[in-house]
């Protein structure tokens, strides 16, 4: 059944309508910042495995050249955003709430911006596997913020086909306008990308959902669709946060609720961000990998604006273009509802960076002190996932994670509606994030423990088996000996026993000798660190000799130990 999405819309429960502040950054067109001289490109930019670096320090790379190779299927490649020289592959701070570092490729731009040879990808002739590999190697990921590798979503419906392809242009979070501006300015390319995706996915209907507070984007998309002669529906959805969440948008347009842990394709729906559609167009039709994205810079700046930023550009360089106000005291990646506060602006723009939001005491006044939860239920009314945030909070606060999971903690999409409405100013989402990461850590620990148990049990099993084998071997040998020399059995046994204890002693002596040598070596090795090459060599020689001595000693025939 093909739905007629433009006729009937559905609603999701909950949601809030915060101040949007979107007009700040939509007054001027998307800007292009001056070419950066140094780019820091983190290898880990998408959900899944961290790509392996495939360039080396000192190597010259071209714009669009792959520098990180996808690690496994759930991963996406990383590319050089401009041409230049790799000056380092090292740990650099990431735009991550932890402020921790991860492996990055540092590129010194040469200013030429030489591209690799690009050619369109003939997806019509390609197999599903080839399309998947191509997109993975083009580094296309969801640009709405979740950075889920797109090839996994595009492949999912390849054979069977899906009912509805939804293109997410809702962009519900305050301040962020990158999708809005993209739709206004590049509607034609987006529509071409959507057409490509539709063919790959074999979708019966296509619906582009845009919130009704973006009339210009809606008009631009409608024009582009009618010009392209495609039968896409441009659906205006009511403005209500978080209508731009994939699950919420699917619900609004099709009425289907995709539960946690299920993929929307199981319900015949697939949802992509408009920027992802453009990236797919560029990858397939132009052969260009994903090396830039639109970033909104807003908040505490005098000239809020959107920029097309090369991945790896440092945030402070972009922010400087917008004249940040003097009282700026924090930088947030993403919007005020779901964004994460960063430790500094000295981090690169990554594929997930849809917005750089500067904050000050004036724009985001410090939250009034947290008051006790009185279970008023406002959060439950606002929750778009129909959860009971107050119960989740109660158990997350007390670190009763099992109970929190019973109350469906992992169905929480961290949209921040509950924190927004809470009259007691409780940072509810922080508690859920805390509880979730604790639970994940525990699950990881549990998996490790299970592995350790397996290995331990196998070791025990092996020890036992060896014990049995040894006993059997000895028994066999003893029997053989008894048969061969029946008359002097007693003598032999005595000799054997004597030999055994001798062997034991020998082993102990060996270890003692090695110990002695090692002590001496320890003394010799120590100065090595101070740079005495000769001493190092001496030590090496001594080691080799001692090993030889050991081998010689070991080469002597040893009697089997007896039990």
């Amino acid at each position: 059944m093909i739905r007629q999405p433009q006729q009937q819309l559905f609603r999701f429960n909950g949601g809030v309508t915060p101040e949007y502040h979107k007009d700040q950054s939509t007054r001027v067109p998307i800007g292009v910042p001056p070419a950066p001289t140094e780019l820091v490109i983190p290898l880990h930019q998408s959900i899944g495995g961290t790509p392996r670096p495939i360039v080396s320090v000192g190597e010259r790379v071209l714009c669009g050249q792959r520098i990180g190779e996808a690690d496994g299927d759930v991963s996406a490649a990383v590319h050089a955003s401009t041409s230049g020289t790799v000056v380092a592959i090292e740990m650099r701070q990431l735009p991550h709430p932890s402020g921790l570092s991860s492996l990055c490729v540092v590129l010194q731009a040469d200013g030429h911006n030489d591209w690799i040879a690009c050619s369109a990808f003939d997806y019509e002739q390609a197999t599903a596997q080839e399309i998947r590999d191509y997109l993975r190697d083009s580094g296309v990921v969801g640009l709405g913020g979740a950075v889920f590798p797109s090839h996994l979503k595009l492949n999912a419906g390849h054979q069977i086909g899906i009912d509805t392809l939804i293109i997410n242009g809702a962009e519900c979070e305050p301040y962020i306008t990158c999708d809005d501006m993209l739709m206004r300015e590049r509607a034609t390319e987006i529509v071409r990308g959507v057409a490509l995706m539709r063919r790959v996915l074999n979708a019966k209907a296509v619906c582009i959902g845009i919130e009704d507070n973006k009339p210009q984007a809606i008009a631009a998309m409608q024009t582009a669709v009618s010009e392209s002669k495609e039968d896409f529906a441009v659906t205006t959805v009511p403005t209500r946060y978080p209508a731009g969440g994939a699950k919420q948008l699917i619900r609004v347009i099709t009425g289907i609720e995709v539960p946690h842990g299920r993929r929307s394709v199981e319900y015949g729906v697939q949802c992509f961000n408009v920027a992802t559609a453009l990236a797919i167009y560029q990858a397939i039709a132009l052969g260009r990998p994903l090396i830039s994205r639109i970033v909104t810079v807003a908040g505490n700046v005098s000239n809020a604006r959107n920029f097309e930023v090369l991945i790896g550009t440092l945030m402070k360089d972009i922010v400087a273009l917008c004249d940040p106000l003097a009282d700026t005291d924090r930088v947030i990646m993403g919007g005020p509802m779901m964004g994460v506060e960063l430790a500094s602006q000295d981090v690169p723009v990554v594929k997930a960076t849809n917005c750089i939001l500067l904050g000050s005491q004036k724009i985001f006044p410090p939250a009034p002190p947290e008051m006790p939860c009185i279970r008023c239920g406002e959060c439950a009314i606002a929750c778009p996932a129909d959860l009971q945030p107050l119960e989740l909070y109660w158990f997350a606060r007390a670190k009763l994670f099992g109970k929190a999971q019973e109350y469906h903690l992992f169905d929480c999409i961290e949209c921040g509606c509950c924190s927004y409405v809470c009259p007691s100013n409780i940072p509810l989402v922080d508690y859920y994030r805390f509880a979730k990461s604790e639970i994940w850590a525990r699950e990881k620990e549990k998996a490790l423990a299970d592995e350790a148990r397996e290995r331990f049990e196998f070791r025990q099993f092996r020890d036992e088996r060896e014990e049995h084998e040894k006993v059997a071997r000895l028994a066999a040998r003893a029997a053989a000996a008894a048969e061969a020399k029946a008359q002097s059995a007693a003598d032999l046994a005595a000799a054997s026993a004597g030999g055994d204890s001798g062997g034991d002693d020998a082993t102990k002596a060996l270890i003692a000798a090695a110990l002695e040598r090692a002590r001496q070596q320890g003394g010799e090795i120590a100065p090595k660190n101070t740079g005495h090459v000769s001493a190092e060599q001496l030590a090496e020689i001594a080691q080799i000799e001692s090993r030889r001595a050991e081998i010689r000693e070991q080469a002597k025939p040893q009697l089997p130990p007896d039990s």
Partner: protein
Amino acid sequence: MTGYFFVVLGAVLVNNVVFVRILGLCPFMGVSKKLETALGMGAATTFVLTMACGSSFVIDRWLLQPNGLEYLRTLSFIVTIAAIVQLTELVIQKVSPLLHQVLGIYLPLITTNCAVLGVPLLNVTLKYNFVESLLFGFGSAVGFSLALILFAAMRERLEGADVPVHFRGTAIAMVTAGLISLAFMGFTGLDKYK
């Protein structure tokens, strides 16, 4: 018929074995930490108590009273109940090992559970007939289970409460039980209509 109904209702609510008669507190405090264990304990007690009431009635009416051995009542009841509990434990261990683990040390506690002895003795005092005895036993056990289940659900939530350090655990559970007892006093006087 309504008489029977009021026997059960009275035993469940008005004279709730835990909150009003204050019997069977050890398992009540011990097994009410989790809802599922509470359910198991409630089920086990319901079974044992109903059986105990039936069998003790039989023993009292047809063994002790005809022979003028009322003075052996307590003794023989204890023996009978102990045996029934043992039987229950063996059966549960076989049939549902999980329930057995969960009830663990509490199943033997039923043996010395004052509720299980007290209710049959009350039966005698109240001069109930066989059916009434069974119903009274059943009702008391249902009241016990109800108390246990409600209390367990409360305790599961209380576990997250920011209780002052010295009152954590059993202390606050006792306070809570006391307050529930206070609430159940509201039913006082209801049973005069039977």
